[in-house]
């Protein structure tokens, strides 16, 4: 097999159908970028889900002087009331553990968390965040009963279920993921049709050459390889563009998402690289296969 000859044939083929090649590259790039983004979002959701599932808690905030809830009457519950609430929580079958957090601890935690934004952390005052119970559930999904019993109980200001907030966030991510995957699937169909058309045109343009090749006894591999590689190279160029787009996706979409919504763990570049490699390979294989199947119809033995 003479590499130079094959490369020359591919180059001629790609150049002759330049507009088709460009359309193909763009379609493949978009398809693979969206596909990769969908996969990245899925990985992000799974990873965050794993990370948070044993950390989410139901927080029961007690009344204090600053409570806006009228039922509190701006009064802090007595120590015995607090103990009663704690006992009630501990006796519930869904609850795994209960930890008390005092105003002072909460204040320190908020200070630490927002230490990078001094303007904000300076305005936090001791007492802004009331005493609370952090309740760990045996099964994070079984929060409804706990919330129902605590909500409106005397001495309780509000019950915040972190799980519900997380779920909203995961729902948005899940929606994005499916949107990306569905559009990617449509683009993949478009890419396959474009490959078929490009290769058909290429086979038609080169029918003289292939006719002679058949007659002088060139092997099918030799006749078909330039066409299949033509598809593969278009797929590869598209895949490289997709890789760049996926890099942007990681930095601007996932990066921003995880930074703004503080409770997501960010995917590393290793994960992203895996997705990129997988997307590029998928693009190349898809285009090569589409070329090969098209050829079987248009080049007879």
């Amino acid at each position, binding site marked *: *097999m*003479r590499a130079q*000859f094959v490369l020359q044939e591919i180059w001629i083929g790609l150049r002759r159908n330049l507009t088709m090649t460009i359309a193909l590259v763009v379609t493949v790039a978009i398809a693979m970028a969206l596909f990769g983004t969908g996969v990245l979002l899925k990985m992000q959701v799974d990873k965050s889900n794993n990370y948070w599932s044993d950390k989410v808690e139901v927080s029961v905030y007690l009344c204090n002087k600053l409570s806006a809830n009228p039922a509190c009457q701006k009064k802090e519950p007595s120590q015995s009331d607090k103990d009663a609430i704690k006992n009630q929580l501990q006796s519930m079958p869904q609850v795994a553990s209960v930890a008390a957090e005092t105003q002072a601890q909460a204040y320190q935690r908020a200070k630490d968390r927002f230490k990078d934004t001094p303007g904000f952390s300076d305005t936090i005052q001791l007492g802004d965040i009331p005493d609370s119970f952090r309740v760990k559930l045996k099964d994070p999904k079984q929060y409804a009963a706990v919330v129902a019993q605590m909500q409106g109980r005397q001495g309780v200001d509000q019950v915040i279920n972190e799980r519900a907030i997380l779920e909203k966030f995961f729902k948005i991510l899940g929606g994005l993921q499916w949107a990306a995957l569905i559009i990617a699937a449509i683009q993949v169909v478009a890419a396959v049709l474009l490959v078929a058309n490009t290769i058909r045109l290429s086979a038609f343009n080169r029918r*003289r*050459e292939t*006719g*002679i*090749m*058949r*007659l*002088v*006894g*060139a*092997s*099918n591999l*030799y*006749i078909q390889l330039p066409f299949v590689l033509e598809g593969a190279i278009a797929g590869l160029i598209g895949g490289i563009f997709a890789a760049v787009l996926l890099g942007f996706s990681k930095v601007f979409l996932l990066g921003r998402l995880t930074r703004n919504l503080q409770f997501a763990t960010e995917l590393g570049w290793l994960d992203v690289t895996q997705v990129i490699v997988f997307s590029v390979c998928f693009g190349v294989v898809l285009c090569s296969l589409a070329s090969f199947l098209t050829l079987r119809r248009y080049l007879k*033995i």
Partner: protein
Amino acid sequence: MIHFDNVTKVYSHQGRPALQGVNVAVEKGEFVFLVGPSGSGKSTFLRLILKEERPTQGGIHVAGKELNKLTNWKIPHLRRRIGCVFQDFRLLPNKNVNENVAFALEVIGKPRRFIRKVVPEVIDLVGLEGKGHRMPDELSGGEQQRVAIARAFVNRPMILLADEPTGNIDPATSIGIMKVLDRINRTGTTVVMATHDAAIVDAFRKRVVELEDGRVVRDQSRGVYGQAYGGV
């Protein structure tokens, strides 16, 4: 070298057969003219030898191979032992003479050194010395056909098939083409040539197989084009 054993070829089920019960044996080194009116099955006969078409009935042996048993995978190897020339030359317009001839070797993966050695030899053999760098549109029809013959012969095939090679060429130039084919035949290559050219058949006095409506109606050594067409 080529054996047709009761071969029938039907293209479409309604139509009449293109070939019907054909028995022909061509031995190594023979030169055979295939004659007959238009539509009598000459091109079909040649295509069957290349396994471009399959016989509806009967068996064909080419170069010791039974074509019915030849897998698709092996067809290219069969075709490497057979050279082909056509009425319309079939040269690649964007390649010069050398490149057109070399193409036939490049696509079967021959090494470059070998190609550089044999291409000039065969170009000399067909009488195109010094014209290796011309493009096809800078050559006369006769010269283009010589390039096509060079390309068909460059891999030293055992068989050369020619389908009306002089069909687009004036009589004087045709004689030159025939001399080239004769020279190739003298190297031991079997030549089968389909033609309508009575003058050439009569002048060369080789074996003549005449087809009519897909049947062999005459098989004559040192024959002429045929009484029906005003031969000798």
